[in-house]
């Protein structure tokens, strides 16, 4: 089996508080904070996008892996906000990180699941022996429509994972994917904001797929919730992952480290991958870690992982997720946020 030999994450430094957004639309900030369990979210700068986030996360992953970038044989970026409709994000990343030109590149999309999807394919390619190392990245700068519930949570960030067979920092014990055709959330070509089915995005979408995938993974791996030190779930808001985790039999303590949405927001394809990075930053050798993503449309990828003794020393080589969440940051007004998110109409 192959495993994770390097990982990295990146969260932009700009923030906006949920209160500031609520104030804009005349909503009660306390009710929003309580209902969604969100305090603030990250906002990408005008000069940041899925590509720049992937490069930053990828660079950190290379530092932790300590390998020559040219040995990476495949690079996949999963996002629902690729900067181009036609031209891959991955090609800019391979040039920036010195991985080009002997490499396979493809961009992935599957709403918020595109990150773990890229990781799944990277893993499989290494396991098959076709490439020595492969990188899977989940990164997004998704938009929330003005005065819509998703505006409180849609944020920016991402994480990159390099898979290989030697010197693994994290072993992959088992994987399971559960997918169906469920139109809970979508965006047609040319639309600026996605649309969603309101409450339909809950039980038949998020909960059904996250819980089914996780239960099936546990069964396939012959493991139970109490075997795990940490559990990370896709975080569209603060409430859903805690609810799903509880229904599956995980405790708040198990979920605490990976539950970063309250100050990061929902980084879509970056969500559970960045939550996982937060866990890897502090995990000890032998810790079992569960991660289950969710992408609307709909599907979940679930992984059972185990930290090796190499992890703690390598984790220290690049910035931690916590340092990015709690470190220097800049709070924006709604006007600045609208400018940064290009919600202001301009002539071409």
């Amino acid at each position, binding site marked *: 089996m192959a495993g994770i030999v390097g990982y990295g994450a990146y969260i932009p430094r700009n923030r906006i508080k949920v209160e500031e957004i609520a104030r804009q639309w005349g909503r009660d900030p306390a009710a929003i904070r309580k209902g969604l369990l969100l305090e603030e979210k990250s906002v990408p700068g005008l000069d*940041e996008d899925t590509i720049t986030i992937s490069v*930053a996360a990828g660079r950190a992953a290379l530092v932790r892996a300590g390998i020559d970038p040219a040995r990476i044989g495949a690079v996949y970026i999963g996002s629902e906000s690729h900067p181009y409709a036609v031209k891959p994000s991955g090609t800019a990343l391979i040039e920036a990180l010195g991985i080009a030109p002997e490499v396979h590149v493809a961009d992935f999309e599957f709403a918020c699941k595109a990150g773990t999807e890229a990781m799944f394919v990277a893993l499989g390619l290494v396991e098959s022996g076709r490439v020595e190392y492969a990188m899977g990245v989940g990164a997004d700068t998704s938009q929330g429509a003005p005065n819509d519930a998703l505006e409180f949570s849609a944020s920016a960030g991402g994480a990159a994972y390099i898979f290989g067979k030697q010197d693994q920092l994290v072993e992959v014990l088992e994987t399971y994917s559960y997918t169906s055709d469920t139109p809970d959330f979508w965006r047609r070509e040319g639309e600026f904001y996605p649309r969603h089915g309101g409450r339909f995005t809950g039980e038949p979408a998020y909960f059904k797929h996250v819980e089914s995938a996780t239960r099936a993974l546990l069964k396939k791996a012959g493991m139970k919730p109490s075997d795990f030190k940490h559990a990370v779930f896709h975080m569209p808001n603060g409430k859903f992952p805690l609810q799903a985790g509880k229904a599956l039999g995980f405790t708040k303590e198990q979920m605490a480290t990976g539950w970063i949405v309250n100050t990061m927001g929902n980084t879509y394809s970056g969500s559970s991958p960045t939550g996982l990075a937060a866990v890897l930053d502090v995990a000890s050798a032998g810790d079992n870690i569960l991660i289950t993503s969710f992408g609307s449309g709909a599907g979940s990828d679930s992984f059972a992982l185990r930290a090796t003794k190499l992890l703690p020393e390598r984790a220290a080589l690049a910035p931690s997720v916590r340092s990015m969440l709690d470190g220097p940051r800049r709070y924006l007004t709604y006007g600045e946020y609208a400018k940064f998110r290009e919600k202001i109409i301009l002539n071409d």
Partner: protein
Amino acid sequence: MPSPRYWREIPTRYRLEAGRCRKCSKVTFPARRVCPACRGTEWEKTSLSWKGKVITSTVVQVAPTEFHMEAPYAVAVVETPEGARLMTQVVDCDPAAVQPGMEVALVFRRLRKEGHGGILCYGFKGIPAA
């Protein structure tokens, strides 16, 4: 931005590829044919560290069209440890805080968008060093 011009600049803009003169060891960025210090024409490939120090700077308030929405922004001449100097924006901080002597890290960012349909142009920018 014409595609060929943008594509030629990728090694410079994405990877900070530079040249070290074999005769006098001066590092020039970007790499060039004739050394400005000793007129030598033999070079060694090298690349710059992703960090430096601000030599001089300004805050642009009246910006060119493509940078219109980013104004005001700080632009600085930055010197890297190799002794190479380059011009770059310094972001992720109050522009007024960018002053000579400030230490910066160089990071990969999107420098410009050509309207709604043109190519996206990436490169390096400075941010305050951790």
